[in-house]
């Protein structure tokens, strides 16, 4: 496995079938695309054909939703084999999934469930990440999830857990800005503690997304534009970590490509302003 940190890619979007035609017929101002791995873990046909065309023009990152890295069930070798087959075809800049579990006893809940942050869970996850990385022959990138419940048995904070996984398993991290915001709101911790609690040298990607307010808690639904509070936290995040490949996730209510690119331009502007301010500080 290469020791090099993956390259900085700039500002990307999640690839959605609604945008295929516009992407291939124009030259949209998007630096790279993230694809949901499972949508292309299929035998053949149009989705793979389009993906082949898009990867000719843009760097691709693969993002999975069902690795279930924290599950206590045995690793699903069929799933991993299909994932590896796709990775061999696409040659992504990196492969990510969520630091969570999605099912046990052979039943998939297709939802991203949180884990108790205990030493036992940590050992378990570290061991599994190492085995998955060995099998894939490349490092994994793991993303913090949003959660609505906490476990009484947790022995450490989420950011300590995430950091320990990254350093002990030697994997990369995907810092989901919106998820940190959602979890901090739901559990009453400080976004700054999380931000300062994870190792900068492990972060290879940011996620931005919209969510919905459900009264006393917020749900990470990816069906709204990014809200002002999350933009503010993004500014703070970029100031803290420096330039990191950034993308906007939109899974529902998918607007026209131009609209999502306009949102991406907000991220570009914020990151530009942060860089500018740093420059000014450095010059003084």
């Amino acid at each position, binding site marked *: 496995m290469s020791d090099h940190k993956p390259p900085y890619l700039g500002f990307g979007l999640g690839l959605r079938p609604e945008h295929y035609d516009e992407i291939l017929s124009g030259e949209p101002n998007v630096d790279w695309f993230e694809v949901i791995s499972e949508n292309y873990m299929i035998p053949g046909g149009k989705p793979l054909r389009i993906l082949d065309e898009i990867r000719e023009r843009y760097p691709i990152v693969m993002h999975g939703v069902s690795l279930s890295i924290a599950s206590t069930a045995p690793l699903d070798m069929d799933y991993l084999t299909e994932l590896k087959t796709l990775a061999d075809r696409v040659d992504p800049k990196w492969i990510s999934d969520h630091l969570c579990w999605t099912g046990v006893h052979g*039943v998939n809940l297709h939802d991203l469930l949180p884990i108790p942050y205990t030493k036992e869970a940590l050992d378990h996850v570290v061991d599994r990440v190492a085995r998955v990385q060995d099998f894939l022959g490349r490092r994994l990138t793991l993303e913090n999830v949003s959660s609505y419940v906490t476990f009484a048995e947790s022995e450490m904070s989420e950011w300590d857990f995430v950091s320990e996984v990254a350093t002990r398993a030697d994997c990369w991290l995907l810092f989901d800005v919106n998820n940190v915001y959602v979890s901090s709101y739901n559990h009453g911790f400080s976004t700054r503690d999380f931000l300062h609690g994870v190792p900068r040298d492990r972060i290879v990607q940011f996620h931005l997304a919209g969510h919905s307010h459900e009264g006393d808690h917020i749900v990470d639904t990816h069906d709204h534009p990014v809200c002002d509070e999350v933009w503010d936290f993004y500014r703070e995040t970029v100031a803290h970590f420096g330039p990191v490949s950034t993308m906007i996730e939109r899974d529902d209510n998918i607007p026209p490509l131009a609209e999502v690119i306009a949102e991406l331009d907000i991220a570009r502007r914020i990151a530009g302003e942060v860089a500018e301010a740093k420059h000014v500080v450095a010059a003084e």
Partner: protein
Amino acid sequence: MTHAYLGDEAFSDLARGYIAAHPSDKRNARWFSRYLPEFARTTAPFSEHREVAELAALEKALADAFDGPDTAPVSLEELAAIPPEDWVNLVFTPQPAATRLRFKTNAADIWTALNGEDSPPEPAQLPEPQTILVWRQDLMSRFRPLGPEEAMMWAEAAKGVRFGVLCEMVATSPARTKRSSARRPISRPGSKRARSPVSALTVPSPIW
């Protein structure tokens, strides 16, 4: 289309019953609904409305054809290049994404109406079961009903029966003499040609 046909309420009953009976056993949610046609065929009240299971089967077959394995179909040029004396020994291999369904109801007509956002015809039993061919052409899934003779030819060809034998079978087929009473196949746009579902031809070496 199964959803459009049943409406929200009945479809959500079907979906909930299905989820309880078939918890997702694959990581990839793409394959989650693969037992739905069988579930609808065998579970009341849907089992009393056979067109529901057939609509679900058609939908599944179209989805499977859409992202099934890639193979290059035989082109007209390739066919033209085959020496006349070899035709008798040709064996046709259907593309792996092609399937045939056997319908007892007018589910295919219901699907076509719903797909065109027309109001669907009343569900009805067909006088004779109908074979529906589902395949992929130009990256899109398609389907069309096969006449009785054509369905028979497909079944035999898919078993590896040689072209020469197939021709003899057609010549003596009872379906041929009955053809005037057969239902006229409903054409789907762009599905005029039967060549594309055939992905490979092999010319077996002669048997001595």
